């Protein structure tokens, strides 16, 4: 007769206890909001992440080149002086919309820079748009956008 192996449930319970009582804990939005990463439109991704929100169109600055020559690495800067707790970055060019979700630390500075991959815009027609949604500590939502064109796509490989 084969010997059966059982998993100790105790190990799982231990893993759930946070290691320290630091100001904030790391949040894995891929684990807590899995659907937001599969959404194929910006609206669907925003809804999956934040619910049915109506963000105000102010308070968040998004900067990117108007015409990105290389879609493999498009520089994007995000700045805000608002007290935010979450900052999410989306775009409407790639197969899925979500790019990043920042969990802003206690008295953290929202001044982020990252390079992202975008498909060439002529494949979809029209401009591409990078959308950034910020969730304030006051529970309100804010939005910033930047439209751009991508000459050569970076997603095709």
């Amino acid at each position: 007769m084969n010997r059966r192996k059982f998993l100790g449930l105790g190990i799982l319970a231990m893993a759930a206890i946070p290691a320290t009582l630091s100001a904030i804990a790391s949040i894995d939005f891929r684990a807590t909001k899995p659907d937001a990463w599969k959404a194929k439109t910006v609206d669907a991704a925003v809804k999956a992440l934040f619910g049915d929100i109506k963000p105000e169109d102010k308070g968040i600055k998004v900067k990117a080149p108007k015409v990105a020559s290389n879609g493999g690495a498009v520089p994007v800067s995000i700045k805000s002086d608002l007290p935010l707790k979450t900052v999410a970055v989306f775009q409407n060019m790639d197969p899925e919309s979500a790019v990043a979700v920042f969990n802003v630390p206690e008295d953290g500075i929202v001044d982020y820079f990252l390079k992202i991959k975008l498909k060439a815009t002529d494949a979809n027609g029209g401009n591409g748009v990078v959308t950034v949604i910020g969730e304030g500590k006051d529970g309100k939502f804010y939005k910033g956008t930047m439209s751009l064109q991508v000459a050569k796509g970076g997603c095709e490989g």
Partner: protein
Amino acid sequence: MAHNMKIKAKLKGDVVNVKVLAKHDMLTYDQAKKKGKEANFITHITAKVGDKIVYDVSTSQFWSKNPQFKFKFKGGKKGEKLDITWRDLSGKTVTESKKIK
């Protein structure tokens, strides 16, 4: 293992400016399909000074290959160690450190 990341952390006034270049193929699902490989990309990045989190982001396949990113935080001092950790889809975790200049 070193050389998975290039980190610069510099104190200016009371703000630490951090620049990072992480070495990773960031292979999207589409790219992986074409190459007959498994998709793999960084899914989370966290930076800490001591046990205090100063940067925490969940990431997708659409960060560029060998992703570059910058951020700022308050409360860091010269000589303190900044630890940056990334985790990818395969479950690999890499942590590298740099002293704040």
